[in-house]
Structure formats: C-alpha cells, structure tokens
C-alpha cells in the first residue's frame, strides 16, 4: 500500500448524496480478475450517455475541475462490498474523498487501499462546495498527521477523525495482512482453546 502523509490539491465537487457503489463502478465492469483498469470506468454511466457519448454536464468531464480530491455529498459509498469501487477511484487518480458521511464497508475498503476518507460536518461540506463553486482552483490541503483539512489561506479548516491504528497504517503504508500473519501463535492458541 502507498503511504499517505499530506496532500495539497484542487478538488472535484460531486454534489450528489447517497452515491452508491453501483454508480462508482457498475457491476458489468466487475469481471476482471486483477485490480487494474477500473479507473477507466469510474462513474461510467454518469460520465457517458448510453451511446458512449461523453456527458459534458457531469463534473468529471468539466475541465474547470481537476485534482485528486473528490468532494462528495453525504452517505458516500453505500451499497455493495465491492472493493472495485476503491480501485476505480484510486485508478482514476483520487487520493482523498471528502464527505459528511461514509458507508462502513466502503470506508474500510478505502483505507485498505491508501485512499483517505475524510469525514467533515454537513456545514463544512456545504461551505467547501461553495468555495469550489466560487473558485474551482481552490487548493485543499489534507494533513493526515495533524488530522486537519483546510483550504488556501485557511478560510476553511477543520479536524477529522481516523482510527489511530488505521492512521499508523496509512502513514507508513502498512496493511492488515502483515499484522495478522504476525499473530499466528495467538490465533492457533485460540483455535486450540475453542476445540476444547
């Protein structure tokens, strides 16, 4: 997993609530057996009209907005457990998702793929959307070490929560497998106890 310490980037506002994993990556693209290539199909049915024609109304197709931070409406990532959603977002180039609420499984999947979910209040989110509307070039900084998200000139700034264990993993690029495998003795002892 890639490390994440601090990032400054412009952001893309996706002002839609309840973005579910079927929108992030539709099921028909889940046939691959590796993790590559999902980025091409992120938000596929919003980015393209049925005939494969680009939907110019959709924010990802709007050249005004660019960057590796996605700012999305509340309850982002609800729906299925498909980790392909996280692979599609990282594959497209996102490193941070900002929302006022994340679905459980999606949040876990993101953290396992070096994609940082930053949960802010509804008020903060509304202000951030406004800032991006006023000035699409607004730079957003996400500092994982300090757990602070802010915009240029500190006109807007807030702290965010993250599980301390997950924070350590993200900062160092560790993942859970290494940790769990190192616990093998304890796991075997537990199994022995359970059998009796």
């Amino acid at each position, binding site marked *: 997993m890639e490390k994440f310490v601090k990032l400054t980037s412009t952001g893309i506002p996706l002002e*839609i609530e309840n973005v*579910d994993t*079927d929108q992030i990556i*539709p099921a028909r693209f889940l046939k691959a057996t*590796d993790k590559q290539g999902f980025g091409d199909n992120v938000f596929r049915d919003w980015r393209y009209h049925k005939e494969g024609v680009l939907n110019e109304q959709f924010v990802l197709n709007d050249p005004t907005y660019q960057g590796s931070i996605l700012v999305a409406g509340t309850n982002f990532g609800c729906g299925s*457990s498909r980790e392909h959603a996280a692979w599609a977002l990282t594959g497209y180039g996102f490193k941070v998702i900002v929302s006022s609420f994340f679905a*459980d499984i999606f949040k876990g999947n993101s953290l396992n793929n070096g994609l940082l979910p930053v949960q802010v209040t509804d008020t903060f989110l509304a202000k951030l959307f406004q800032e991006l509307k006023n000035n699409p070039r607004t730079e957003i900084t996400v500092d994982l070490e300090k757990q602070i998200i802010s915009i240029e000139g500190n006109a807007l700034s807030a702290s965010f929560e993250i599980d301390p264990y997950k924070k350590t993993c993200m900062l160092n690029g560790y993942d859970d497998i290494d940790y769990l495998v190192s*616990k*093998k003795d304890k796991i075997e002892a537990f199994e022995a106890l359970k059998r009796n």
Partner: protein
Amino acid sequence: MGKTLFDKVWDAHVVDTIENGPQVLYIDKHLIHEVTSPQAFNELEERGIPVLRPKQIVATADHNTPTLDQHLPIKDELSRIQLQQLSENCKKNGITLYELGHQYNGIVHVMAPELGITQPGMTIVCGDSHTSTHGAFGTIAFGIGTSQVAQVFASQCLLLSKPKSLRVSVNGKLKNGVLPKDVILYIIAQIGTNAGTGYFCEYAGEVFENMSMEGRMTVCNMSIEMGARGGMIAPDQTTFDYVKGRKFAPEGEEFERKLAYWRTLPSDPDAVFDKEYVFKASDIEPMITYGTNPGMGIKISGNIPTLDDNSFVKSLEYMGLKAGESMLNKPINYVFIGSCTNSRIEDFRIAAQIVKGKQKAGNVTAWLVPGSKQVEAQIEAEGLKDIFEAAGFQLRQPGCSACLAMNDDKIPQGEYCVSTSNRNFEGRQGQGARTILASPLVAAATAIEGKITDLAQYLN
C-alpha cells in the same frame, strides 16, 4: 449489565485486542465467490502467504453465471475466465467449490444456510454485502472487501473495531398479505438508509419470533440497506429445527452439545442497546419502492411523497415518476422473482399460490430465478414448476441473475421491473433500468395484472 446476542457471539471470537485500536476477530466460516476473490488469491500468491484454513472456506459460483443452458460453456469470455480462475484457485488451495451445475450450487447466501453450513453463534464473512442474511441464525455475519478476503485467507481473522448495538423491535401481528419483505422495506423507509451505519442490528419482538427461517433471512439480508453491517435474530426452536438434519449440521451428541450453547445466546433481559426503534406490526402494509434507494418506499396504496431536495428530484426523474402520484395501475413489463432476498422455496410457494390457474399479462416478461439447485429441484418436486410454466412464467437456472445484471439477464433501458431483490439503485438491473422493490406476492400479482396492483382482491 447483561449482554446482547451480538456481544456474546463477538466476545467468544476475540483473539486479541490492540490497545486503543481494533480487535482481532476469529472467523469460523468464510464463503467466497468468483467476483470478489480472484484479487485476494493473487495478493496472497504475490506475497508467498498460504491459505491458513482451507477447510473453513466454501466457494460457489453465482454472481456472473448464466441462468440458461448452464451445461454449455459460458459464452461471455470474461465470465468464463472468472469461473475458471475460481476453480483453479480452489483446487490449488484445497477449498470446497460448488461450481456451476453442482447439486449444491447456488447464491452464496441461499446455499450455505440450506446446507447447514450456517449455524447459530458463528462468525461468517463473505466478500458480499448481503452476508448479513446469515444473521437470521443468530450468527455474526457481514460483508467484507477483497483486502479483507485476503486477510481471512491469510489468518482466518479480521482486524475490526466492535460496532455499536441497535435493536429494532416489531410487536404484534402482521396483517394478511404482509410478508417479511414488507417488514424490512417498512423499517428502512421509516429509519432511512444510513440509520444503521456503525451499528450491528438485532431484530426482536413477536413478528420475528413468529417468522419462518426463510422470512428471517429476507429481513436480515436487507440490514445493509439501512447502513448496518449486519442484522441478527436470536436463535430459538424455529432455528434449531431448521438446522437439524442438514448436510453439514452437527449430529447426535455434538448437536446436543452445541444446542445447549445456542440456547444461551439470546440477549439478556437487562442488556442495553446503543439505539432502539420500536414499531407496531399493525402499521405495516404491503410495500413498494418508487425511488433509487431502498429507503424510498411507501405502502402500495399510498402516494409518492413530495420533497424539496435535489437527490429526491433526481431520483424521481430517473424513475420517470412524479411526486404525489400513486404507484397503483402503473404498467409494468418486467417482473423478477429471485435474488438472495427472495429466492427460497417459501417465496416460490407464495408466488405460486397467486399464479395458480391464471395467466401472466401479455405485456409482461416474468423471470423466476431460484436461489440454488436445491430450491430449483424443490420447485419441480412440489409441482410449482408446472403452475408457473402454465401461467407463462420463465423458470430459469439458479444464480444472482437480474439482481445485479452482471450476466445477460438485464432489464432494458427505461423499463420498469418489479423485483424481489434488495437494491433499486440506478442501473442496478441494467443501464437505465428502473427497479421497483416489492415482496414475491406483489411481484406475482403484478405479473398477472401487467400493472402494479392492490393485493386486496388476491387475499380472499
């Protein structure tokens, strides 16, 4: 303070606790399928880590499989490769696989319970959010991502923070024609699609006590649609009777020993939940959804609400529906009875009761997709197949099918489908398809009438 059902099962599986961090939770059973496992097998292979407990893993092919001509080679190349890879991975690692055509093949959440793999007091995971289904047995069961599938392969454990507890009680008696599907659609419509996020839910009260195991599975299945990681129902005599005698259920003395333990699992009377909701059974009517998330549901005779909210407006636009209108008499061309929510034998029995001696409407394409080979065989053995076929319904072979439309079973652009599945997201059943969630009873009546129908005339 007393313990909840969830506490009891969770605490019995904690291997270790990281200070100020998550816990290491032991997983009894790991179910896998073709879509969310290949990358996990690759991950392990790249790191040179073996699968720790292959005997605790069971695999099936369900998401991407055709529902016609399953004996022929699969036409879609990518699907075929995915299934081949599953077979190879299982063989290499000594994992039991019920592949396409096997007598035990089926949707993972239908086949495991009917084989007795799912038992009370267990921890069960699967790379699929509807793993919550197995909670009907008093099991901690939840969906995981592919990285976590790899973690369980490597260690038979997961690193997790204990979720908070939620209890939803429904007391009293259900009205005639109100099915478990209506109960859960009602609950989600009342509390919303993220009321359960961060929680594990227990369903309690007379309604669930009186429910069959099939019905309990339908309810627990949709826990994820209110954001909860999983749902559970306390195991009781109904549960024990269901488990006993199944293929992989414990037998004889071992069954008795386990039974004694299972009986200790229900929440203590003084257990305290972090959040509680209480509903009255008499308030629940047959339900239907009108929008693009499962919380957008109303009673079938009700009207679509009027809300001033962007997401709501966008959703109605997608569905081609208007605020304030009734769903009744809306013409419907597609009906799907299937998915891990409603594809068990009980669901087909209920549908058959309505269909018997009638014909589907001329405009309707009606797909019936059993949840497993065993359900398929039962449909035939009980004579339901004849009833459905005489009425013009298409009985297909088992799999996820039009629930997520990964195979060829897609609803065409712009068409409405009354579906017994669990998600009405945009494009879930095919690009531009419009899904209306309902019970098998409502779905069957819709197929006969060719339009959304008040059930009253069918109930007498």
